[in-house]
């Protein structure tokens, strides 16, 4: 093994050279930003004047701001819809496709397609479809005789937030693909054995598939909730937080603070967004068990 250690010593300078660019970029774009928003969250700063430390005033400010509280509430509604709508629906579709129904690969490809299209393009598309005057949704309701239901979907208090959240459901294919891969990796011998024992399809799903993909479901659920907590584009483009500040999310709140040169408050929002994400996702894993996290599979 002496050979290896001298070889390694010789290589160490190359190794350092090889990991240097990534390290520098990560320090600048991941490590520094975390410390930066941590420090800035205790300061008042408009980007020009020197910053002044004001203790926890920013935290008090945001928690007493009704718009901030609405934003957190909306993020939690987003997260709830992710867990209660996206994951069950994605699971249902994945379990159907996992039985290799006719054309399952085509369905998989189609369902995932919206995920390669930008949030902006889809938001503009939905905005056109929700348009109160000549949007497709209202036209469709008129055609099927439900004209009374036609409304200004994004402009009315009652429908604005649901309309924004529903527009996002087109991205379910992402979670479906993850769950499908989990379900298809279950050894088929389990199903064959259960069939000999007289199990029907429902029993197979209930007692074989679901328990086997538990970890994958937790992964997908955690991802879905994590994405729900970092929402920005869909809300920004569809309602910009309106009507009457009913639909903002933390990302939008932070953007508005930045646009108003309240960098300290924006940083505070960023910190709280990260903390909320950690709390909610670890809470989820506490309740539902460990996920098959991405980094587990290395080494």
């Amino acid at each position: 093994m002496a050979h290896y250690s001298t070889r390694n010593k010789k290589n160490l300078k190359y190794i350092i050279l090889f990991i240097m660019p990534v390290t520098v970029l990560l320090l600048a774009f991941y490590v520094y930003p975390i410390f930066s928003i941590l420090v800035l969250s205790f300061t008042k700063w408009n980007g020009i004047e020197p910053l002044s430390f004001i203790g926890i005033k920013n935290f008090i400010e945001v928690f007493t701001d009704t718009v901030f509280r609405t934003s957190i509430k909306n993020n939690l509604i987003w997260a709830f819809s992710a867990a209660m709508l996206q994951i069950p629906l994605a699971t249902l579709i994945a379990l159907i496709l996992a039985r290799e129904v006719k054309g399952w690969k085509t369905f998989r490809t189609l369902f995932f397609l919206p995920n390669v299209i930008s949030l902006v393009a889809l938001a503009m598309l939905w905005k056109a479809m929700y348009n109160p005057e000549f949007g497709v949704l209202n036209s469709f309701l008129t055609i099927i005789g439900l004209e009374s239901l036609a409304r200004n979907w994004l402009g009315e208090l009652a429908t604005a937030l649901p309309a924004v959240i529903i527009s996002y459901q087109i991205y379910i294919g992402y979670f479906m693909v993850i769950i499908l891969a989990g379900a298809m990796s279950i050894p088929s011998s389990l199903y064959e054995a259960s069939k000999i024992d007289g199990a029907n399809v429902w029993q197979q799903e209930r007692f074989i598939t679901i328990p086997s993909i538990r970890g994958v479901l937790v992964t997908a659920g955690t991802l879905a909730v994590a994405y729900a907590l970092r929402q920005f584009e869909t809300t920004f483009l569809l309602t910009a937080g309106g009507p009457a500040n009913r639909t903002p999310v933390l990302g939008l709140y932070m953007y508005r603070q930045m646009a108003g040169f309240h960098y300290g408050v924006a940083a505070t929002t960023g910190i709280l967004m990260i903390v909320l994400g950690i709390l909610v996702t670890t809470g989820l894993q506490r309740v539902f068990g460990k996920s098959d996290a991405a980094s587990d599979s290395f080494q």
Partner: protein
Amino acid sequence: MKKNKNLNYISPLGYVAKISKWVVLLTYTLIATFPLLWLTISSFKTNFEIETSPFSLPQKWMVENFVSALSVSGLSRYFLNSIIVAVVATILNLFVTSLASFAVARERFPLRGVFFTFSTAGVLIPIIAFMVPYYTVITRLGLYDSLIGLIVTYSAINIPISMFIVSSFMTSIPKELEDSAEIDGCSFWQRYSKIVFPLAKPGIVTAGTFSFIYCWNEFIYALLLTSSRSARTVQLAIRFFTSQFRTDYAGLYAAIVLTMLPTVAVYMFMHDKIISGMTAGAVKG
């Protein structure tokens, strides 16, 4: 294999299950594809048709809409910006992550595990929380409103995911090839460039595809770090189209379709790779 082929008797419940299965699949197909299909078809219509018969096929397929979309909005400039940013950021990202992945996957060195965790942990962080520091860093470097600013930012943001994909691919390459090459006098750099990098190409292509799609679609930091035509990307352009086109919906739809084409084209050729790359990260095989 999981099909229930040899059931001679199908119970009434079985029929219900079979029918509801297809109802679910076809309904979701409609949800996932209708908006895009409608958009694409509408982009070939006249404005009058869009308003009066939103669900019909166009009387005449108006290719002119695309021509006017390109000329009215100056879309071609934004397209060029997006292509430069996405391609260069992806190349830069792949270059630095393949170097680091080579070190992590093929060499032993102190704190190697720590470095790997450090380089991939970023996937867990909501990048949007870094609005303030990204803005201040880019501004201080004098890169505000420049393509280079976006390129550096995007290539850095994508490091964790690329490190994960490329290093796990490089780990799976057999050691023997490299060993014999070393005996033949291959240098450290040559082992990377002549042996491991070429063999890791499938993983690098997958990582590059993810990076390209991310860069092409990114909106928040494009919004925050640019202010003029010279650096703005197509995603920002779409947003401003709404005011530019005012009542020209056909032009707006055509413009949106054009901005979707690159990622949809990549997806058409690479969907299996994209889907398997996506699931490899999240599901333990």
